[in-house]
C-alpha cells in the first residue's frame, strides 16, 4: 500500500489573508495610532516597505474565565538542586519564571506589546486613511502624462494605414482553402468518374456531357471565392502604455523657524511623503533634496530636516537661492524632472517676500515641472502668501499654493495642487 502524498504548495496561498484583514479592521483604531507613530519615525523614501507595528497586548487579549493570582496552589517543578521537604522559600523563587509564578500566565495578560508587520499595502491603506482619502490613491496616482504606443497583436477593425498585409493574406489563404475544400474534393471525384466514363463509354454519351457540365460549374464556383474578403482584414493593433520618465528630483523646502512646531513639521512630512509616493509612480528613480532654512538655508539629510531643533528669524529667499544653485550644479540637464514643494507657516521678513516672488518667477519656475507652496497655519495668510498669490495667474499649471490647517487637509490640498496638471 502506498501512502497518499498531496503537494499543497501551489494551493491557496494567503489563506489567512481574510483573517488578517479582519484583525486589522477590528483594531483599526490602535493600528492607526501605531501607524501615525511609525510615520513620525520613518523616512520619506521608506514608503516602499511594510512597517512593524506594535499595539498593546492588553487591548487584543481574548478573555476567558481563568483563575487569578491568589488562593492555594500546588505546583510540581523539575530540576531540584537544593530543596528538602519542608523548606520554606521566599516568593517568587528562581527569578521571574520560578515556581512562585508557575507556568506562564494562562490569562494571556502579559503586558508585552503585540508586534506584527503590516504589508506595504496595508500600511499605505492606513497611511492614506489618516489623510482621509480612502480609495483615492490608485485613481489619482496612477495618472501619468506620457504614453508610449506599442504594438499589441492584431485587431479586425482599424484604419487603412494600419492594415497588416501578411496577416491579412494569411487569413485570406486560409479562408480560401477552407471554403474551397468541399468543391475540390467533389471535383476530384467527378474527374475520376469522368475518366472512368471516357474509358468505358462513347464520348457522346449524355452521362459524359453531364459530368463535364458539372465540373465546369464547380470550377466556376471555386473561382468565385473572393481572393480577399473584408472578413480577412487584419490591422496592426497599437496600445498606449504609460511611459514613466526615467528620473526626477524632488526638492523639499521647509521653514524651521521657531514657529514651525512639531505638529506642523509632521504635517509637512506627510505632505512630502505623499508627493514622494506620487512621483514614485511616475519615475523609476527619484532623488530627494532636503533644504531647511531660518535666516540661512542649508542642505541637510532627512533626519536633520525634520528633527533638528534650531530656530531663528526667517529669510525664505535663502532657501530658494540654494535650490537654484543646486539645480544649476546637479540637475541642469533635461533628463531631470524637477519638482519642488515648500512648507512654511508663511511668516517671513516683509522685504524678503517680494524677493522670493521674483526668484521663483525668474530663476526657479522656468526649470521645474511643478512647484507647490503649502502654508501650514490655522490663521490668516501671511505676507509670503500674498506675494506668491501674484504668481498663480502667470504660472498656472506650474505653480500652486494651498493652505493646510489640519492633517485631514493634506490630501485634498494635494489633489488640488496636482489636479490641473494631470487632468
Amino acid at each position, binding site marked *: *500500500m*502506498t*501512502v*497518499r*502524498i*498531496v*503537494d*499543497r*504548495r501551489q494551493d491557496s*496561498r*494567503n*489563506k*489567512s489573508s*481574510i*483573517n*488578517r*484583514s*479582519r*484583525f*486589522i*479592521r477590528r*483594531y483599526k483604531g490602535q493600528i492607526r495610532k501605531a501607524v501615525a507613530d511609525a510615520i513620525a519615525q520613518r523616512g520619506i523614501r521608506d514608503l516602499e516597505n511594510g512597517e512593524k507595528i506594535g499595539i498593546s497586548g492588553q487591548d487584543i*487579549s*481574548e*478573555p*476567558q*474565565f*481563568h*483563575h*487569578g*493570582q*491568589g*488562593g*492555594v*496552589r*500546588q*505546583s*510540581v*517543578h*523539575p*530540576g531540584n*538542586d537544593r*530543596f*528538602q*521537604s*519542608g*523548606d*520554606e522559600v521566599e*516568593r517568587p*523563587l*528562581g*527569578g521571574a*519564571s520560578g*515556581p512562585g509564578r*508557575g*507556568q506562564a500566565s494562562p*490569562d494571556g495578560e502579559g503586558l508585552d506589546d*503585540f508586534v*506584527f*508587520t503590516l504589508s506595504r499595502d496595508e500600511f499605505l491603506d492606513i497611511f492614506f486613511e489618516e489623510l482621509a482619502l480612502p480609495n483615492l490613491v490608485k485613481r489619482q496616482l496612477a495618472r501619468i502624462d506620457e504614453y508610449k504606443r506599442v504594438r499589441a497583436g492584431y485587431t479586425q477593425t482599424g484604419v487603412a494605414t494600419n492594415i497588416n498585409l501578411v496577416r491579412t493574406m494569411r487569413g485570406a489563404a486560409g479562408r480560401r482553402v477552407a471554403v474551397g475544400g468541399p468543391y475540390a474534393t467533389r471535383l476530384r471525384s467527378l474527374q475520376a468518374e469522368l475518366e472512368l466514363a471516357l474509358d468505358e463509354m462513347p464520348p457522346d454519351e449524355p452521362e459524359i456531357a453531364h459530368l463535364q457540365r458539372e465540373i465546369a460549374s464547380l470550377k466556376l464556383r471555386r473561382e468565385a471565392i473572393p481572393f480577399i474578403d473584408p472578413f480577412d482584414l487584419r490591422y496592426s493593433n497599437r496600445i498606449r502604455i504609460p511611459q514613466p520618465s526615467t528620473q526626477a528630483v524632488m526638492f523639499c523646502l521647509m521653514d524651521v523657524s521657531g514657529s514651525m512646531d512639531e505638529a506642523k513639521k509632521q504635517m509637512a512630512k506627510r505632505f512630502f511623503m505623499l508627493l514622494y509616493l506620487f512621483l514614485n509612480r511616475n519615475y523609476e528613480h527619484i532623488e530627494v533634496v532636503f533644504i531647511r532654512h531660518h535666516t540661512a538655508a542649508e542642505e541637510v539629510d532627512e533626519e536633520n530636516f525634520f528633527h533638528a531643533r534650531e530656530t531663528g528669524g526667517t529669510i525664505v529667499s535663502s532657501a530658494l537661492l540654494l535650490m537654484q544653485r543646486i539645480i544649476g550644479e546637479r540637475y541642469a540637464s533635461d533628463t531631470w524632472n524637477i519638482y519642488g514643494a515648500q512648507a512654511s507657516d508663511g511668516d517671513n521678513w516683509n522685504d524678503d517676500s517680494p524677493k522670493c516672488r521674483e526668484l521663483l518667477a525668474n530663476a526657479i519656475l522656468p526649470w521645474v515641472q511643478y512647484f507647490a507652496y503649502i502654508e501650514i497655519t490655522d490663521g490668516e495668510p501671511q505676507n509670503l502668501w500674498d506675494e506668491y498669490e501674484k504668481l498663480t495667474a502667470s504660472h498656472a499649471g506650474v505653480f500652486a499654493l494651498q493652505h493646510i490647517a489640519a492633517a485631514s487637509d493634506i490630501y485634498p490640498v494635494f489633489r488640488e495642487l496636482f489636479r490641473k496638471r494631470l487632468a
Partner: protein
Amino acid sequence: MTKKRSRLIAEGSEWTLENLALYDAEIGRVAREFGLDCYRHQLEIITAEQMMDAYAAIGMPVYYHHWSFGKHFLETENRYKRGQMGLAYEIVINSDPCIAYLMEENTLTMQALVIAHAGYGHNSFFKGNHLFKQWTSADAIIDYLVFARHYIAECEERHGVDAVEHLLDACHALGNLGVDRYKRSPPLSLEKEKVRQREREAYLQAQVNDLWRTLPRHDATVSAAEERRFPEEPEENLLYFVEKNAPLLEPWQREIVRIVRKISQYFYPQRQTQVMNEGWACFWHYTLLNTLYDEGKLNEGFMLEFLQSHTNVVYQPPYNSPWYSGINPYALGFALWRDIRRICETPTDEDRQWFPEIADSDWRETFDFAMRNFKDESFIAQYLSPRLMREFRLFAVLDDDAKAMLKVDAIHDEPGYRALRRNLAEQYNLGSSDPNIQVWNVDLRGDRSLTLRHFAHQRRPLSPASLVVLEHLSTLWGFNVRLEHQNPAGEWTLLAERKTERRKHTDP
C-alpha cells in the same frame, strides 16, 4: 561498517515525493510489526506560510473566518521571522484519513521523523484513546468544519460581518466552559447537521418561546411548585445553556453558538491528553526510526540529525533555567512511556513493589492498555514511577497566599513520592485548572437575569478578565448577568453584575 549502502532506504538529505513514499512504506511496515493500529493517513506538503496558516487555525485545514485567527497568524509569523521559534515541523489532524503536514523546508530526515511521529504516533493515539473515540468522529470533523464555515459565511452575508464577529467573540470567551465533561456527544457530520439544522431551529425556538411565555396569569396558578429554580440542576456547559435557553437569540445566532460549542468539544480531548499524546508520538518516532537503523536502512548521518531534533524536543530545562516555562509535555510524556517499557522489560525491586501488575508484563500489551484507557491526569497518577521522579528531580511547592513563604512540601524521596505523584496528576486535571462556574439560576418570573456561581477551588479567585467574559455572556443572554461566589463565611455574595440594555425586540 556493517551496514551496506544498498540497504539504505534512500540517499542524501533532499526529499522527493518518491523517497517520502519509500520512507513511509518502511516506517509503516515497522509500525505494523509493533502492532500500531492507525487510520489511513495522507501526507500533505506545504510551505512555511501555509504552516503558519494551519497554526492560526489550530491546525485545521478549514475554519471559519475570525480576527483572532488573523491575530494568531501575525503572532506566529512575527516570531518565526524573527527566528524566535522554529515552526513545529509537524501538525497532524485527528481525522480519518489522518492528515499530516510536511513543511517543504524540512530535510528528508525531518520528513521521516514527522511521518513516524504524526502519521503513525499521533494517528494511532487518535484511533485508540477512549476520549477521542468517545468524543470525536474522525470521519466527520472536516465535513463539519466545512459546514460551519459556509454557515457562518452565509450569516455574515445576511446579518453583517460585525454582528457575526461580535457573536463569535462572545462564544469564544466562553469556549473553555462550553464543553460537556461527562456526557457523550453524538457524532458530528455534515449530512446530519444539514438535515437536522432546520428542524432544530424551529423546535428550539418554539421551546424557548414556551419558556419565556409572559402571558398574564391567574393568581391561582401561582403555586409553590413554580418557585423552583431554573435550571433545576446547575449547568456547567455555559454555551449549551445559552444555546438552549437564551431568550432573545435569533435561530442563526443559536446555530453559531452551537458551532463554537461543538468545535470546543472536539478540541477538549486534545487538552486532556497532551502529555500522553505527545509522549506517545515521540516514543514511536524514536522507536520506529531506531528499529530501521538497526535493520541497516538508515545511515549514521540520518540518525545524528534525527537524534539532535529529537533531543531538542524532549529537553526539560530545570526550574531555575531562563528557558523554563513549566513542564515540557513532550519531555514528560516521552519519559513516561519509555519508563513503562523499562518497567515491563527490566523492572527493579522498587518497580515490582510499585507496579506489581505491569512489571515483567508484555510491554506492547501494557502500552496498548495505557494508551486506550487514560487521560493525562489518570495516566500520571497510574504510571509515574519513583525512578522517573528522581530522574526529573521533581519537587512540589505549596503556594498559599495566606502565608508569607512558599513551602516545598514534597521532593523526590521515599516520603515524597506519593504526594509528588498526586500533585503532578492534579496539575493536569482540567476540572480544577479551569474555574468551576455553573449556571445557578434564572429569574424566570422577574427580570430574567441569569446568575452564575463560581465554586472556588482552594480559595483561588477568578482573574480580572472574568468581568469581560461576563459582559460577553450578557450579550448572549440579553438580560442582566450576575456572578456569585462564596465568601469565607460560606455565604453566597455577588461578585459582579453586568446590566444589559434591553435590546429592542424585533418582530419578524
